[in-house]
C-alpha cells in the first residue's frame, strides 16, 4: 500500500510540475503586482529595429513605476502565437499588430473594444484618417495607431542625379543604369505578400486598385515590370528578394535605385556611411500612391489589466515621446501633431509620400495577404513568360473568390 501511495505522489508531482512549466506564458497581468506584458514583432533589444521600442517602454517604466515585460515574437510567428494564446485565454496585456489585421483580430475576439477609453481620451482627431480607419471594426475602435510607414525611391546620388518622376522615366533611367552586374532598380518580389508591394505600387500608379489585376491598369503594371526585367533594369533575381535583400543590393551598389520603406534609413546611415544616397517620392502616372505600412496598439481580449495597458498605450502616443522614438525607429507618425518630422530631409520625403497612401478598407483588410499573394503569383508568371492578361485573369479569379465577389 505504501508503494502505491508513494507512486501516486510521484505521479501527481510530475503532472503538477508539467502543468507548472506550461503556465509560464504571456499573461495579461491579472495581478497588479505582475509585470504588464507587451508582445511585439519589431525585434529584441539588441536589434536596431527593436531597441527604440524597448527604450520607449523603459522611459514609461521609469516614469510610472510600472514593470513591463516585453516579448519579441518574429513577425512570421506573431499572429499564430497571438491567436493560440487568445484561444487558451492567455493573451498579452498589449499586442502590437499589423494595421491590416486589426479588423480580423477584433472580429475573432482576440483584442478588446477600446471605444469607451478612446471617447474619454479624445485625441482621435489628431490621427491621419487612413491610419485611424484601420483601428475600426463594426463601428467600434479596437486599437490606437502606433506609427506609419511608406514606400519611396532610394537612389544612389553618385549614379543618379535626379530620381525619375514618372514610370516611363523610371523604366528608361533604370535600363540606362544597368550593366556590369548592376541593375537600375531593386525591389522585393519574393513569393507571398511581401513580394507584391512593388507590383501593387505600380498598379496604383497605373490607376488600378490592388484588387483589380485583370484590368488595363493591372495589365500595364505587369507588362511594365516585365519590360524592366527584359531590359536588365530590374534583375530577374528580384523574385527571390525580400525587402532586406533589396536593401543589400542597393547598399552594395548592385542596384542604383530601390523602392523600399523608411525602415532602412538609419540602417543605411549606420552600416554604409560612405554610400551617397537620397530619397524621392514614388514615380507618378495616374497617381503616385504608396502602400501604407502601419501597426496598431491593441489590448488583449483576455487581459484584466486594461487600465495599465491603456496608460502605456497613451504614453507611447504622446507627441513628445513620438518625436524621440520615431526617428530612432525609422518610422513616421500616424498623427499630425508630432513635431520634428520635417526637420530631417529624408524623413520629410517619406512624410510627403505618406500623404498619398493606399490602405485596404475594412472589407478587404482581412483578405489583404491572400490578395497580395495572388498578385505576386501573377507577377512571377508574367516574368516567366505567361502573357500578362492570362496571368492577371488567374490571379483575379483567386482575388474574387477570396473577396466573395466571384
Amino acid at each position: 500500500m505504501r508503494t502505491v501511495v508513494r507512486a501516486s505522489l510521484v505521479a501527481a508531482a510530475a503532472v503538477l510540475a508539467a502543468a507548472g512549466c506550461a503556465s509560464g506564458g504571456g499573461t495579461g497581468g491579472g495581478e497588479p503586482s505582475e509585470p504588464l506584458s507587451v508582445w511585439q514583432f519589431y525585434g529584441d533589444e539588441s536589434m536596431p529595429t527593436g531597441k527604440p521600442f524597448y527604450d520607449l517602454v523603459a522611459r514609461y517604466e521609469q516614469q510610472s513605476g510600472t514593470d513591463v515585460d516585453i516579448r519579441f515574437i518574429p513577425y512570421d510567428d506573431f499572429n499564430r502565437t497571438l491567436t493560440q494564446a487568445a484561444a487558451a485565454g492567455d493573451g498579452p496585456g498589449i499586442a502590437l499588430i499589423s494595421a491590416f489585421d486589426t479588423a480580423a483580430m477584433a472580429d475573432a475576439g482576440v483584442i478588446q473594444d477600446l471605444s469607451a477609453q478612446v471617447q474619454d481620451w479624445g485625441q482621435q482627431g489628431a490621427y491621419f484618417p487612413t491610419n485611424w480607419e484601420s483601428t475600426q471594426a463594426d463601428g467600434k475602435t479596437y486599437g490606437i495607431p502606433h506609427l506609419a510607414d511608406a514606400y519611396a525611391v532610394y537612389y544612389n546620388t553618385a549614379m543618379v542625379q535626379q530620381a525619375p518622376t514618372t514610370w516611363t522615366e523610371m523604366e528608361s533611367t533604370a535600363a540606362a543604369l544597368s550593366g556590369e552586374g548592376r541593375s537600375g532598380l531593386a525591389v522585393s518580389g519574393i513569393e507571398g505578400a511581401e513580394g507584391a508591394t512593388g507590383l501593387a505600387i505600380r498598379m496604383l500608379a497605373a490607376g488600378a486598385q490592388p484588387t483589380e489585376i485583370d484590368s488595363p491598369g493591372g495589365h500595364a503594371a505587369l507588362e511594365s515590370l516585365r519590360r524592366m526585367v527584359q531590359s536588365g533594369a530590374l534583375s530577374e533575381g528580384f523574385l527571390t528578394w525580400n525587402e532586406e535583400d533589396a536593401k543589400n543590393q542597393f547598399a552594395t551598389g548592385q542596384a542604383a535605385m530601390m523602392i523600399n520603406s523608411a525602415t532602412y534609413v538609419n540602417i543605411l546611415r549606420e552600416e554604409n556611411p560612405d554610400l551617397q544616397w537620397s530619397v524621392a517620392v514614388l514615380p507618378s502616372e495616374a497617381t503616385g500612391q504608396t502602400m501604407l505600412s502601419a501597426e496598431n496598439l491593441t489590448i488583449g481580449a483576455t487581459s484584466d489589466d486594461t487600465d495599465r495597458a491603456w496608460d502605456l498605450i497613451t504614453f507611447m502616443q504622446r507627441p513628445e515621446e513620438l518625436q524621440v522614438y520615431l526617428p530612432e525607429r525609422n518610422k513616421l507618425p500616424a498623427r499630425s501633431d508630432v513635431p520634428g518630422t520635417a526637420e530631417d530631409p529624408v524623413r520629410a520625403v517619406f512624410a510627403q509620400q505618406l500623404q498619398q497612401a493606399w490602405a485596404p478598407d475594412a472589407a478587404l483588410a482581412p483578405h489583404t495577404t491572400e490578395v497580395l499573394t495572388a498578385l505576386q503569383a501573377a507577377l512571377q508568371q508574367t516574368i516567366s513568360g505567361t502573357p500578362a492578361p492570362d496571368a492577371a485573369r488567374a490571379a483575379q479569379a483567386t482575388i474574387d473568390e477570396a473577396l466573395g465577389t466571384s
Partner: protein
Amino acid sequence: MTVIEAKGALERTRTPSPPHRARRRAGNRADQLFLLPAVLFAAVTVVYPLVYSVLQAFQDVGLREVIRGGAEWVGFANFADQFGRAEFWQALWLSLVYTVGTVVLTYVGGLALALLFVREFAGRNVMRALLMLAWILPTVVGANVWRWLLDGSYGLLNAVLRGLGLIDGDLFWLGQPGPALVSVIVATAWSFAPFAMILMVAGLQGVPAMLYEAARIDGASAWQQFRHVTLPALRPVSVTVMLLIFIFAFKTFDTIYLMTRGGPGGATLTLPLYAFQEAFEFRRYDTAAVATTVMLLVPLVLSIFYFRSLRREEAA
C-alpha cells in the same frame, strides 16, 4: 526469464498464495501509476492535437471559431472543396515529387558515403564528423547556406560555373520553377544523407565477410559483389532508410520555407507549406486541416505497408 527457473518455482509463480497475489496486484498498480506521466504527456502533446486537427477538417473553422468556438460541423465538405481544387492536387503532387527526389538522392548519397566510410583510411573519423555537421546543423543555418550558395549575384555555384566558362551572367536558381524544386531537393538530401550513411554503415558492417570471400573465389568482379552481395544484404536497412527519409521529407517545412517560401509561383509549395499558408496566412484552418490530415495518411499507409511486408519476410 521464468523459463530457466526450476519447475517448482514456476508452479509457485503460477499459483501464488493470496497474500502474494495481493502484493503483485498492488505492485502492478504502482507500475501503471509510474507510467501515468508519460501517458498524460503523450495524450496532451500527440493525441489531443492530432484529434483536434482531424476534427477541424470536418468543421467550418476560421479565426473567429478558433478563438470563440462554435464551429459548425460540415462533414466532408472541406474534403470535397479541397479535392476539387487544382492547387491542392498540385501541392500533393509537388510533395510526392519532392519526397521521392529526396529519398532517391539521400539513399544514393548515403550509400556512396557508407561504402566509402566503411573502409579504413587516414582521416576517416574527421571526415565523417565533418559530414555529420550537415545533419546536426540547425535547418535555418543549412537552408541559408544553400540560399547563399545558389544566389544569382553572389552565389558560389554561379562563381564556379562562371569561372569554368559554363555560364555568362547571373543564373537565379531559386527564381525559376524547375531549378528551385531541384535546389530544395538537393539541399534536403544534403542534410539527410549523413543520417542515411550512419544507418547503412551499420548495415554494411553486418554483412558477413565470408560472403565476399566466396564471391571472389567464384570470380565475381567488384560490381558483381556489390550487385549480388552488398545490395541484397542491405535490403532491410535500405527499406528502413527509405521509409524514414520518406516520412522526414514528406513533412519537411522549414528547409523549403527558408529557401523559397514555396515559390517561385508555387513551384515548391508542397503540402506542408500549403497547409501553413491556408492556416496562418489566409486563416482557413479547416482546409489546412484537410491538408494536414492527408499529410498524416500518406506516411501512415506507407508505414503499414512496410510493416506488413516486414512481417511477411520474417515469417518466410
